[in-house]
């Protein structure tokens, strides 16, 4: 169990870095607002970064056995299917997650 001091340090460090990344560019990047390469990166990065984060979380929680893998694949298919159909992030995230919780809880019970 992490100590409160360690947790507080982790929170403060994360908050400071996050705020710095959000605030400093307004001063630093201003001269580059019309930079061609930054403009291109701003357009092309989001989809790739989000995909890497999705793959990373899947890899972090990779299923231990075939039933667990099937549960993850099925939940993923439901989340993607719901989102393609409804375009509603709430339905898609809740739908996939509720299914995954039910399947995972049944598998471990």
């Amino acid at each position, binding site marked *: 169990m*992490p100590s409160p001091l*360690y*947790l507080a340090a*982790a*929170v403060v*460090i*994360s*908050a400071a*870095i*996050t*705020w710095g*990344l*959000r*605030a400093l*560019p*307004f*001063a630093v*990047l*201003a001269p580059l607002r*019309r*930079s*061609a*390469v*930054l*403009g*291109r*990166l*701003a*357009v*092309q*990065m*989001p*989809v790739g970064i*989000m*995909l*890497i*984060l*999705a*793959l*990373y979380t*899947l*890899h972090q*929680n990779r299923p231990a056995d075939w039933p667990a893998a099937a549960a993850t694949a099925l939940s*993923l298919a439901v*989340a*993607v299917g719901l*989102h*393609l159909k409804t375009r509603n*992030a*709430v339905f*898609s*995230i809740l739908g*996939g*997650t509720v299914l*995954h*919780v*039910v*399947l*995972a*809880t049944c598998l471990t019970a």
Partner: protein
Amino acid sequence: MFDLRAKGGSLSFAAAVSDTASVGLSLFPLGISFGMLVAHTGLDWWWATVFTAVVYAGSLEFLLLGLVASVTPLGQIAVTALLVNLRHVFYALSFPLSRVRPRGRLYATFALTDEAYALTAGSGARSWSGSRILWMQVLLQAYWVTGATAGALAGALLPFDLHGLDFALTALFVVLTIDAWRARRDLPSPLLAAASFAVAVLLAPGQALPVAMGLFTAGLLVRYALRDRGASPEAGSEPRAGAAPEAGEPEPRVPVAATARGE
């Protein structure tokens, strides 16, 4: 902190409530799942409130929970925070900070999340006043913090463990990937990202996330250099007006440098 009760402040608040309704509907349940994960990790419920109120970067908070649970060195947490939130650097290119009064800018930059950025990037946001933007950000954080606190309290009370809740984060990123893809159907970008992740897992399994993001960014720069050289040799050094972020984005042509320097 800052004065939102300027003339027309209540109008701005009412407008912000309807501006944030749809995003709030997803932030609140996601906050609940974050709170339940906090309880599930074995932390006291109020850490959910502290995490969401102080760090306030959804994806990082979920990752952070896993990192602190295994008592990861603080240096590695700092690197993770830097790399996961590096994308926020680009929001400064178009977020209308100049409309927010100087004292409010401290909060406006602190709360410049993906969702806040996404809302101001819409075409309807062109006319939003500074206080409407601030209220929008305050409300988004309120949904998130309230959801997380409620989830942590509920998670602490539940007599059994909910398994598989961590899938909420995967679902969130998959949904954001689909949305980003819809905004800009650029196939090489996700292909490059997937390849970068595969290489990172093979070469540096312990540091897959930073390595993958580094490879991906390098790959985009190489792609830019190659394509640019093919198109016109001079283009790299020319500032291009057409390269503004997001298609048709209402970019206020206000020099942010002049206004942001006051911080």
